[in-house]
C-alpha cells in the first residue's frame, strides 16, 4: 500500500512537471478596459437576476440571525504550495463577498504535486470543497468517478450564472458538455493554438548573420517560415556552433506540431482532417507522421540532436536556458514571444511554421466544476458566476492585494508591490491560465493591455476548428486496450519521433505493435461513440 501511495505521489510529480513544461501560458490582460476595475463594483450588474438577488438577501438575513456567513471553498493548485499570504487574501475576499454575495469565500491552494491525490481524497470523503479546477484531476475522470454536479440541475445555471453566459460563447460552453450534461465551465484562455512555432535564440541568429526581416510576417506578427527555411537555419547554426545541440527535440510533433485531432486525449485513433471529416484514422500510418519521422531522422543524422534525447526528460525551454541547445519547437499564440523568452532566459525569435488549430478537447481540457457534495449549490454557482465577472474577486484570486502584493503602474499594468519580488512574494500563484477569467483583472507588466482581446480574436479567427469540438470519450471500457497501446507506443514510438531509427522500418514496427495491442478495436470504439455524438448534436 505504501508503495502504491509512493507511486501515486510520484505520478503526480511527473505530471506536474509535464504541466509546468507546457502549461505556463496565457499571461493576463483585461479586455482592454482597465477602467472597469473599480472597488466594490459588480461588473455585470445587469445579469444578476431577481432570483439571484433574492438568494443573496436570504443568505444575508440568515447570517444576521446566526452571526455567521456560510462559506464556499474554491480549490486549485499552484507550483509552490500554499502561499504565505493566503489567509490575508482570503480575509479580504470574504470581507468583499459578504457584502456582494452574502457569504464567505475561502481559496484552498494546494501544491500541484499533491493536488490530484488531495482532491480525490477530499471529493470522495465529503470534506468541504465546493468549486474546483479539474486540471491534473482530469475532467472526464472527475465525471466518471461521480465527483461533479450537473450545473443545469433545476435550471440553476440559467438563474444564477447569467454572467458566465455573457463571457463565454455558447459553443465553447457546449464543448464542455458530456453526454449532453454541462458539468463544468472552461477557463477563459487561448483555446486555439498556432502549431509549429520554432523558437531560436536571437543571439545565435545574430551570430550566423540571419536576417529575419526577409521573411514575411504572419497574422500573429511572427516571421513566417517554411521547414526549408528552418532546415537552412539549423544547418548554419550547426556549422557555427558545433559544440552545441541545435534543437531540444520533444515528443510533441503531433500535439504542438500538427492539426491532427487527438480524439479523447490520445492519439490512438485520430481525425487527420478534423475540419472536414469525422473519420477516425491511425495517425501513425499517415503521411503527417511519416514527414515528421523523416525530418527528425535527418536532424539526428546531421548531428543536431543529443544522443541522450530519449532519456533526458528536462523541458525543452530549460534546455535552451542552459545554453547547450539553440532551438526548440512549441506552439504559439499572442504574447508567446514574451513568455518563451522568459522561459528560455534569453531573447527568442519565434518562427511561425504552422497554422492555427482548435482541437476537440481544447476547450474542455480542464473546466471548473462544482462538487456534487456541495451543501448549497445555489451559493456555489453564484460564486462561480462571480469568478468570471467580478473584477475585485478575480484580482484578489490572481494577484492578491493591491499595495501588499502588487502595485499599479502608470500605464495600467501591474507589478510587484514595493519591497516585494519573486523571492519574497506572499501571493503569486502563477497559474493564470487556469483561472476562470484572468481578463477581467489587471495585466502584468510587459504584456499588452489588450491581451484579452487579442486572445479572444485568436480563438475566434482560428481557421481550422475541429468538427468534433466538445466531443469527449470515456475509455474506461477499453482500459486494457489503452494500456497495451500506450505500452506499445512507448516501446516503439519515441525512437521514431526522436529520429533514432530509419523512418520506414521504425514506423512499420510501431504500426505492427499498435495493431497487435488492439488499435483496431480501440478505434472502432471511438468511431462508434463519435458517430453517436455527431448524430445527437446534428453534426455531419
Amino acid at each position, binding site marked *: 500500500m505504501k508503495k502504491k501511495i509512493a507511486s501515486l505521489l510520484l505520478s503526480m510529480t511527473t505530471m506536474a512537471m509535464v504541466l509546468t513544461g507546457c502549461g505556463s501560458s496565457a499571461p493576463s490582460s483585461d479586455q482592454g478596459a482597465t477602467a472597469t476595475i473599480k472597488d466594490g463594483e459588480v461588473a455585470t450588474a445587469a445579469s444578476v437576476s431577481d432570483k439571484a438577488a433574492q438568494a443573496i438577501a436570504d443568505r444575508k438575513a440568515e447570517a444576521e440571525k446566526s452571526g455567521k456567513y456560510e462559506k464556499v471553498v474554491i480549490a486549485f493548485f499552484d507550483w509552490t504550495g500554499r502561499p504565505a499570504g493566503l489567509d490575508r487574501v482570503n480575509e479580504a475576499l470574504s470581507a468583499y463577498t459578504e457584502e456582494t454575495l452574502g457569504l464567505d469565500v475561502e481559496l484552498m491552494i494546494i501544491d500541484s504535486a499533491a493536488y490530484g491525490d488531495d482532491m480525490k481524497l477530499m471529493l470522495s470523503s465529503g470534506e468541504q470543497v465546493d468549486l474546483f479546477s479539474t486540471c491534473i484531476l*482530469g475532467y472526464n475522470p472527475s465525471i466518471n468517478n*461521480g465527483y461533479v454536479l450537473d450545473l443545469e440541475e433545476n435550471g440553476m445555471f440559467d438563474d444564477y450564472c447569467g454572467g458566465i453566459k455573457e463571457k463565454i460563447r455558447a459553443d465553447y460552453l457546449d464543448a464542455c458538455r458530456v453526454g449532453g450534461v454541462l458539468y463544468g465551465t472552461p477557463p477563459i484562455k487561448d483555446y486555439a493554438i498556432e502549431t509549429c512555432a520554432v523558437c531560436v535564440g536571437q543571439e545565435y541568429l545574430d551570430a550566423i548573420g540571419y536576417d529575419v526581416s526577409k521573411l514575411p510576417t504572419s497574422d500573429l506578427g511572427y516571421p513566417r517560415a517554411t521547414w526549408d527555411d528552418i532546415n537552412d537555419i539549423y544547418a548554419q547554426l550547426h556549422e557555427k556552433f558545433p559544440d552545441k545541440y541545435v534543437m531540444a527535440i520533444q515528443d510533441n510533433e503531433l500535439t504542438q506540431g500538427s492539426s491532427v485531432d487527438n480524439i479523447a486525449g490520445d492519439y490512438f485513433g485520430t481525425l487527420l482532417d478534423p475540419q472536414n471529416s469525422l473519420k477516425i484514422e491511425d495517425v501513425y500510418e499517415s503521411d503527417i507522421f511519416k514527414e515528421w519521422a523523416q525530418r527528425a531522422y535527418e536532424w539526428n543524422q546531421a548531428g543536431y540532436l543529443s544522443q*541522450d534525447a530519449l532519456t533526458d526528460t528536462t523541458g525543452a525551454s530549460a534546455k535552451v536556458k542552459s545554453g547547450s541547445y539553440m532551438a526548440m519547437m512549441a506552439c504559439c499564440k499572442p504574447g508567446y514571444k514574451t513568455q518563451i523568452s522568459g522561459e528560455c532566459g534569453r531573447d527568442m525569435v519565434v518562427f511561425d511554421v504552422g497554422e492555427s488549430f482548435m482541437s476537440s478537447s481544447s476547450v474542455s481540457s480542464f473546466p471548473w466544476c462544482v462538487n456534487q457534495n456541495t451543501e448549497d449549490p445555489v451559493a456555489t454557482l453564484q460564486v462561480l458566476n462571480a469568478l468570471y465577472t467580478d473584477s475585485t474577486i478575480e484580482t484578489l484570486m490572481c494577484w492578491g492585494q493591491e499595495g501588499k502584493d502588487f502595485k499599479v503602474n502608470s500605464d495600467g499594468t501591474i507589478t510587484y508591490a514595493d519591497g516585494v519580488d519573486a523571492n519574497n512574494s506572499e501571493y503569486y500563484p502563477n497559474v493564470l491560465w487556469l483561472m476562470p477569467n484572468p481578463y477581467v483583472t489587471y495585466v502584468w507588466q510587459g504584456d499588452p493591455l489588450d491581451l484579452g482581446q487579442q486572445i479572444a480574436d485568436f480563438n475566434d479567427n482560428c481557421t481550422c476548428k475541429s468538427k468534433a469540438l466538445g466531443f469527449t470519450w470515456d475509455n474506461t471500457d477499453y482500459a*486494457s486496450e489503452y*494500456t497495451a497501446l*500506450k*505500452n506499445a507506443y512507448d516501446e516503439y514510438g519515441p525512437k521514431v519521433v526522436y529520429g533514432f531509427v530509419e523512418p520506414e522500418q521504425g514506423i512499420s514496427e510501431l504500426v505492427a505493435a499498435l495493431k497487435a495491442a488492439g488499435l483496431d478495436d480501440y478505434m472502432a470504439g471511438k468511431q462508434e461513440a463519435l458517430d453517436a455524438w455527431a448524430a445527437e448534436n446534428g453534426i455531419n
Partner: protein
Amino acid sequence: MASGKTKTKKKNFKRYIPLYVMAFPGLLYLFINNYLPLPGLVLAFKKFNAKKGIYGSPFVGFKNFKYLFATKDAFVITRNTILYNLVFIIVNTILAIFVAILLAEMTSRIKKAYQSFILLPYMISMVIVSYLVFGFLSTENGFINNSILKPMGLDPISWYMEKKYWPFILVFVSAWKGVGYNCVIYLASILGIDRSIYESAAIDGASKWQQIFKITIPLLKPTIVMLTLLAVGRIFYSDFGLFYQVPQNQGALFSVTNTIDTYVYRGLLELGDMSMSSAAGLYQSLVGFILVLGSNLVVKKIDPEYALF
C-alpha cells in the same frame, strides 16, 4: 516464543503485561493501518462512484480484474515480475550472507565503517540511484562509454536502447542497493551465535571454512528461511523505483523492464480509476498471501522447526 509455556494462562498474561503495553502502539498502528481498511477491498469488485460512496457503488463482479489479464502483455509483465524477484532473492541472499560472514570475521576497527558503506546505498532514494546509473550509462557523457569503452577502442553503446544488458544491470543495481540491509540482519544473527561453539570447533581443529559451513550457515538457516519466506510473499510486487526510475522509463526496454506495478501505473495514471487500482492491488496481495502460505507449508513438511507459523 513457543518454548516459554508456563502453567496457567492467567499467570502468563500478568507476567507479560509490560510487554503487551510496549507492543500496544505497534498493534494499534497495525490495526488502523492494515486492518481497518480491509473492508475497502470490496472496491475491487465495484464501479466506484463518489456520489454513491464505496459501499453504495454498484457491483460489477470481476470486470475490474479483466483489465490485468485481457492484454497480450499479461504474460510478459508476470514473467518479468516473478523471474526478476526470484533472481533477486537468490542473488541478494547469497551475497548478503557472504558479506555478513566477511564482516563477522573481521576484527579490525574499520569494520563499522565497512558496514556503514555497505548499508549506504540502501538509504539512497531510487530516483537518485537512477541518476547515478545514468552517470555510468549515458550515451554521450556516461562513464562507461567515455572512460572505459573509448580508451579501449570500442564503439559506444546506447545503453538505454539495448534490451540485452538490462537484466544484468537491474540485478546488479538491486544487489548493490539491497545487500547492505539484508547483511545487517544476517550479521546480527551471526553475532548472536554462541562463541563457545567456534572455540570448541577450533580446539577440535576445524578450519575457517569448516567453521563457516558447519557452524555459521546451519545456524543461520532460520533467519535465511524467514527472510526468504517474507521475500516470496512479495514476489508479485516489484520494486517500483527499480523498474521505473532506473531504466529512465525507457519504452525501448519495456519487454525486459515492465512489471505488474509499472504496467498498472502507466495504464491507470491517466484513467485515475480507483476500482481498477484496488483490483490490481488485491490480486497482487492475494497471490502473495497464497505463496507465503504455500512456501511455509513446504518448509513445514521438510522441517517444522523452521516454519514461520
